[in-house]
């Protein structure tokens, strides 16, 4: 049980190397080992989706992976999406439609939507709701989030 493993992982384009216990969850690794606290932890059951990141370009729940499993892989977190002075069009759309209230679920939803929008540049309301059905939000009732996605699709398509 004392075995430690070296993890070499690229996050938001930067390579990191750390030595960790195998049971360290990827969500905890990102937040506390790497200090990337934009990814939030809501449940550790794999239901709420707040911890969603892109793992080799695919959306995964980081609370359902171990850091050791990320060795040799690439991760994108919300910090890699945009900055306060230079928001990604999706983030900008969220701002315009008031899709953020407390902001806790937001990073997970943004990461879930990125690959979705790439594959579905012109989604319907139902497709959008399907895409975020694995992300719980207690504040917004989802509507403005759906509006943000539609707006973003327009912007990114333009």
């Amino acid at each position, binding site marked *: 049980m004392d075995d430690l493993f070296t993890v070499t992982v690229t996050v938001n384009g930067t390579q990191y190397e750390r030595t960790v216990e*195998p049971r360290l969850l990827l969500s905890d690794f990102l937040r506390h080992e790497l200090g990337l606290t934009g990814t939030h932890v809501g449940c*550790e059951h794999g239901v709420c989706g707040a911890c969603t990141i892109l793992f080799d370009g695919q959306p995964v*729940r980081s*609370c359902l992976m171990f850091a050791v*499993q990320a060795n040799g892989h690439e991760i994108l977190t919300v910090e890699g999406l945009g900055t306060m002075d230079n928001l990604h069009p999706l983030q900008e759309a969220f701002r315009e439609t008031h899709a953020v209230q407390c902001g806790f679920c937001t990073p997970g939803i943004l990461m*879930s939507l990125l690959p979705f929008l790439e594959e579905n540049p012109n989604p319907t309301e139902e497709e959008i709701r399907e895409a975020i059905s*694995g992300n719980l939000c207690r504040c917004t009732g989802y509507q403005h989030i759906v509006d943000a996605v539609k707006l973003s699709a327009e912007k990114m398509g333009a």
Partner: protein
Amino acid sequence: MKPAPFKYYAPTTVEEALAHLAEHGYGAKALAGGQSLIPMLNFRLAQPSVLVDLNNVSELFYIRSDDNGGLLLGAMTRQRQVELDPLIAERAPLVHEVMPQIAYPQIRTRGTFGGSLAHADPSAELVAVSIALNGRFRLRSQAGERWVPADEFFVGLFTTVLEPDELLMEVALPAMPPRSGGSFLQITRRHHDFCIAGIAALVTLDGKDQCEQARLVFLSAGDGPVIARQAADMLVGQAPTPEAIRAAAEKAASDEIDPGSDIHASAEYRRHLAKVLARRALTQAFDRASNI
């Protein structure tokens, strides 16, 4: 909730993986997609002393044709791959139909086809569908290999015939017989929750438009998937009229399933749903069979 400590191996070949399982037996757990196992570890409901991570065993990730118009899937194939695969859409339309209903997109990017089967949740879509489609599973241990038909693989609540030193390697899905139609229906409280009742049905029509064979597999209707053989037998040799379908649904729901009660649904409600879903699924399956 953080997992209890465990020893971790990340083999890159099946041989290595099997060696670890052979060495540690009941103390070890194979880690596939982790979407069912890791929550259990986080809750400390499971505390294996050894975890054998299969995610680097590249030889287990594939979807191929077999020689008879069927399909072979490596056990570690990601559910998302199965969802998008054109061969699956063409040769196993029932699987293709079911994939988007499994949990959520982020679960399917990690979750594996074989992992869902090995986990054997009685509400799991792939469990019922693999039985309905007469799938066969290839198991291997250091001692050798064996094939197990899907309808013999699941033996109880979260229990399969897999021995502690065995791995599920591959799922074989035969070609659908001509003039076949499938249907999958489930009732969930929220979109994509585990179902409170569900059914996978596959039927085949003969040259006289009568039922040649039928398979009905219920989800959330017992300790494991429940195959309603008597109801299926009632349909064979009959024209699939609404009355025949209703009678088969009634038979299955009344006599062949043993649903439990929990906080989401009573046994009585589940039994009622099973009857309604059986009727609707059979109707849809026969419609599809006759429209080919």
